[in-house]
C-alpha cells in the first residue's frame, strides 16, 4: 500500500524493484529499503526496520535501575555516554537527588566529547559516501583520542556505561586530564583542516546541496529533533530549551541551517563540534572543586574500603549489587540532547526493584520515517547520501 506522501505509480509504466540493503556497504548498518525505480529515479520507497531489535523496553522491566545503564549504551552506540547520562538523570529526577556541580561539569565534558565523536562519524561518512575518503581516514583518529579519554575515565571505549546514579563513578585521573588537554589542543587543528578539505569543495557542494531536502514545517510534523531539525532552520535544542546538568552555566550558540538538505546537515554538525569545544573549554576553566558524586548511599556504591570495614556500607553495597534499592513511586519524563536529537526517557515506577514501564524516545526511530518522502523523485545515489547525513544509527532505530 502506498504511503500518503508518495506519488501514485503510473499503471502503464514498468518499474524496476531494487532492494537496497539489508546489508549494503553504503548504508552503514542493517537497513532495508525496497525501492521502485524509474531508471535512476526513485518513485517509491518502503523501509523495513527491526533487524537488530533487542527488546530493551521489555528487558528494562526486569532489571534493577542501575543495570539498565548498560542497555542504553547499545542504543546510539556512537555517543553512548549521552544515553548513559540521560538515564542516570532520569533516575535522579525520580528519586529527587541533587548532583554536585563538579559531577555535573564532568558529565558535561564527557557528553560534549560524545557529541563530537558522534558528529565525527556522521560528517566523515558523508564525505566518504561522496568519495572523499581522505577526510574519513584522517579525521577519524580524533575519535580514537576521545575513546582513549573514555577509557581513562571508565575503562571502556564503545559501550561505556559511564557515570552512576548520583554522579560519576570516579573523578578524572591525572592521565585523563592530560589526555583531555592534549585533545583540546589537537582537535581544533584537525577540525579546521577537515573543514578546509571538504566545506568549499566544488564536487562536494554540487553533490550535497539540494540533496534530500526537507522543510522546517515538514521536519516538525515528522518529529525531527537535533541537528537534522536545526539544519531545516528550527532552533530547538534541549540543552537550551530545558537545561539539564548545568548547561545554563555555559555560553554557546545553536547553529541552524536554511534548506534542510545534506549540505546543511553537514554544516550544522561541523559548527556544533566547534560549539562543543567551546563548552568543554568553559567547563575545564570553571571546573568547581568538590565531590564527584552525591550522597545517595541507597544508589551509589560505597568505597570498597568502607565495605570491608563498616557494617552500613556493606549493607548498601549488597543492596545495590543485588538490585534491592527502595525507589519511590511516580512517573517522570526526562530528555537530553543526544547526538541525533531529543533522547527521552519516560519512566513509570511502581516502587518495585525494576521500572514498571520504561519508554525510550529514540530520535532516529522517529525521524527515519520521513526518509521515503525525502528520497522519492530523487536519484538513487542521493538516497545513500541522505541516509548518511541523517545519521541513522541502527541500534537507536530498533532499540
Amino acid at each position: 500500500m502506498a504511503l500518503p506522501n508518495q506519488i501514485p505509480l503510473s499503471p502503464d509504466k514498468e518499474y524496476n524493484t531494487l532492494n537496497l540493503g539489508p546489508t549494503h556497504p553504503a548504508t552503514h548498518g542493517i537497513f532495508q529499503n525496497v525501492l521502485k525505480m524509474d531508471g535512476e529515479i526513485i518513485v517509491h520507497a518502503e523501509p523495513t526496520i527491526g533487524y537488530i531489535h533487542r527488546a530493551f523496553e521489555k528487558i528494562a522491566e526486569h532489571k534493577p535501575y542501575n543495570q539498565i545503564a548498560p542497555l542504553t549504551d547499545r542504543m546510539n552506540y556512537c555517543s553512548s555516554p549521552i544515553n548513559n547520562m540521560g538515564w542516570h538523570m532520569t533516575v535522579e529526577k525520580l528519586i529527587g537527588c541533587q548532583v554536585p556541580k563538579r559531577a555535573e561539569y564532568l558529565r558535561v565534558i564527557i557528553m560534549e566529547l560524545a557529541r563530537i565523536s558522534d558528529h565525527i562519524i556522521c560528517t566523515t561518512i558523508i564525505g566518504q559516501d561522496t568519495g572523499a575518503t581522505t577526510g574519513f581516514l584522517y579525521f577519524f583518529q580524533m575519535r580514537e583520542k576521545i575513546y582513549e579519554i573514555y577509557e581513562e575515565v571508565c575503562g571502556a571505549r564503545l559501550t561505556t556505561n559511564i557515570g552512576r546514579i548520583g554522579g560519576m563513578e570516579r573523578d578524572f585521573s591525572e592521565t585523563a586530564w592530560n589526555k583531555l588537554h592534549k585533545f583540546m589542543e589537537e582537535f581544533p587543528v584537525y577540525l579546521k583542516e577537515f573543514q578546509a578539505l571538504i566545506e568549499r569543495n566544488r564536487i562536494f557542494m554540487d553533490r550535497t546541496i539540494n540533496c534530500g531536502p526537507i522543510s522546517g514545517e515538514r521536519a516538525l510534523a515528522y518529529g525531527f529533533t537535533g541537528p537534522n531539525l536545526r539544519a531545516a532552520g528550527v532552533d530547538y535544542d534541549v540543552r537550551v530549551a530545558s537545561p539539564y546538568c548545568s548547561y545554563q552555566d555555559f555560553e554557546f550558540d545553536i547553529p541552524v541551517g536554511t534548506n534542510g538538505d545534506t549540505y546543511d546537515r553537514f554544516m550544522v554538525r561541523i559548527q556544533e563540534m566547534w560549539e562543543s569545544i567551546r563548552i568543554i573549554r568553559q567547563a575545564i576553566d570553571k571546573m568547581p572543586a568538590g565531590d564527584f558524586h552525591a550522597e545517595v548511599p541507597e544508589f551509589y556504591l560505597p568505597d570498597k574500603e568502607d565495605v570491608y570495614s563498616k557494617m552500613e556500607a556493606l549493607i548498601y553495597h549488597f543492596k545495590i549489587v543485588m538490585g534491592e534499592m527502595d525507589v519511590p513511586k511516580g512517573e517522570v519524563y526526562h530528555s537530553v540532547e543526544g547526538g541525533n536529537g531529543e533522547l527521552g526517557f519516560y519512566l513509570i515506577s511502581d516502587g518495585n526493584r525494576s521500572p514498571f514501564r520504561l519508554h525510550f524516545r529514540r530520535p532516529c526511530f522517529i525521524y527515519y520515517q520521513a526518509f521515503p518522502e525525502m528520497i522519492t523523485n530523487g536519484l538513487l545515489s542521493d538516497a545513500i547520501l541522505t541516509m548518511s547525513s541523517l545519521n541513522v544509527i541502527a541500534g537507536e532505530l530498533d532499540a
Partner: protein
Amino acid sequence: MTDLLHHVSEKLKGKFSEGLLKAEMHYDFPVFIVEKKIIIDVLTYLKNDPDLDFNFLTTLCGLHMPENKGAELGVVYHLHNLKKNQRIRVKIFMPDGDTKVPTATVLWPAADWMERQEYDFFGFEFTGHPDLRRILNMDEMNYFPMRKEYPLEDGSRDDKNDKMFGR
C-alpha cells in the same frame, strides 16, 4: 508549572466539560487524563488552539496495567509547545477487550511509526491508520510481547536449564 496545569485544565474543561477526567502534576509535568472517545478532538484542540499551540508530538507510548481492572490499557501522548517551551502529557485508558484507538496520524505524520510500534507491542488497533503492520518484530508473531502476561524469555525454550540461578 502548576500555572500551566490550571490554564490547560480550565481550557479543556470549558471545551469538553466532562471529557476531562483528571488533571494532576507528576513531577514537572502536567498530566491530563481524558476520555478515549474524544482523544482526537482533544489533541486537535491542543494542537490548533492559538493560545495552547501544542504543535509537536514528542512521543507516544502504550501502557499495560493488568491490576487496573476495567482500564488495563493506556496510551500516553507527550506534547510540546516549542514556542513557549511547555510540555504536557495526555493519557487515555481503556479496558482490555476494547483496543480500538483513533489514529493521531491525521494530526502528525510522526505518529505513523510510533503507533505501529505500540500496535506491535501492545496490540492497540489504531483506527484510520494508513498502514498498521508490525514494525520491529517479525510479521509472523502472534502475540503482543510488551503485555505483562508475556514472560521475558520464551517459555518453550529447553536449552536454558540452569536451576542453580533460579530461572
